[in-house]
């Protein structure tokens, strides 16, 4: 089996398992929707204020939803021993980890991207803002998944790791959040956002090239 077939097999298996567990799949999404709908209820539903807060709130909700789904990314595999089998297989571990991360994004990041426009409308974002939100989430959430995978791999062997995971990865996710939310905000007020989009893409490329290797190294440490 060559490397691309191996990669495809990993992704397919992850999807296969995930679709047997609808609950696990849906809860981060529900969390995203709920956090986003808490703000208008807790503040006051003034259009002007919601339009100003919308980009930041939606981006933070997406970030937290990603974080919520990360905790279980490698834990199950380590507990039932299937990670050992992947580590000992003749294929590069980083590729297997990357496959799992891609599956994580397909199952968590992509639905967020698709849900976000609907939520953006409830925040009265203008059309340009909605488009920018979808675009920045589309480029930004893969970086979040890749960064989160490193944290999940580092804490996979630790009990009670939820808070620790947040402490480790939130500072690292900050640039993505800032570029994403600010670009959405700028687009809403009719400005060009090619700059932040390029920066987000650069972050994604950097993350793609380095982070799977770091996650693989972290998995080896967690399994030791």
């Amino acid at each position, binding site marked *: 089996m060559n490397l691309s077939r191996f990669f495809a097999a990993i992704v397919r298996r992850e999807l296969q398992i995930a679709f047997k567990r609808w609950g696990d799949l849906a809860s981060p999404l529900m969390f995203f929707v709920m956090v986003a709908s808490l703000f208008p209820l807790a503040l006051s539903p003034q259009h002007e204020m919601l339009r100003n807060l919308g980009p930041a709130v939606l981006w933070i909700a997406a970030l937290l939803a990603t974080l919520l789904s990360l905790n279980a990314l490698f834990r199950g595999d380590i507990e039932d021993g299937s990670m050992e089998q992947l580590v000992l297989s003749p294929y590069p571990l980083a590729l297997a980890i990357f496959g799992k991360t891609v599956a994580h994004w397909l199952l968590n990041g992509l639905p967020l991207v698709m849900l976000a426009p609907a939520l953006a409308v409830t925040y009265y974002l203008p059309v340009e803002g909605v488009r920018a939100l979808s675009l920045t989430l589309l480029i930004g959430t893969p970086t979040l998944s890749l960064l989160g995978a*490193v944290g999940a791999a*580092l*804490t996979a*062997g*630790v009990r009670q*790791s939820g808070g*620790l995971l947040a*402490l*480790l990865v*939130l*500072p*690292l996710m*900050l*640039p993505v959040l*800032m*570029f994403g939310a*600010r670009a959405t905000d*700028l687009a809403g007020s009719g400005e060009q956002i090619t700059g932040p989009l390029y*920066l987000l893409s650069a*972050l994604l490329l950097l993350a793609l090239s*380095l*982070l799977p290797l*770091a996650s693989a*190294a*972290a998995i080896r*440490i*967690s399994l*030791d």
Partner: protein
Amino acid sequence: MWNWFHKLASPPHFYRLAGIFSPWMLWSSLILIAIGTYGGLVLAPADYQQGEGFRIIYVHVPSSYLSTMIYALMAVTSGIGLIWRIKLAHAVAASAAPIGASFTAVSLLTGMLWGKPMWGTYWEWDPRLTSELILLFIYFGYMSLRASFEDISKADRAGGLLAVVGVVNLPIIHYSVIWWSSLHQGPSIKKLDAPSISGDMLWPLLLLIAASTLFFGALLLYRVRAEVLDREHNSRWVQDLLGEMPGAG
């Protein structure tokens, strides 16, 4: 050169040498800190714009400098420890973290105290303070991650990996904060900088930077000795050492 390096990296040798050097370094650094503080508080003239308030620079800048320098040191030693599997390098990284975190906190607090008379508010989301805050979070993350492992060698490797990932991220975070705040606030907010510093203002600052580096070095050696004991307490030389003189300090 390589030989010398190997000898230094051998735990018993390091333990002995560090035990000789650290008290000397500690005392001389404390004397230099005292001189620098006297210079900063008494001898240096007041700034013509910021008045006496500018004297906070003498503690803010050394601690800001230490906070970044220590993180860089942690990342380098973690990398060395991961690549060449040198326990001593991991011990250095582990020892540096709490010292770095404490000076990061001092840098934040003194920055806030400086900000009140300068900006009229204790906190402003200016790039330097924001980066410093995130650096503090990263220090906390590193220390919590280490603390969550019972096995020291696992803690070493996991923490080392996080330190290396963090050092790639720090400049990204720093420049994104700068970009972000350049959109946010007009030029009315002044950065925490001493304008046109003169010679008799400068020497206490340089002295304090040097003295605090020396102070950090002394503490580091002291802590690394403890970390070496933690890692080596099964080995012959530690047993001989502690068997000879129980409760050696």
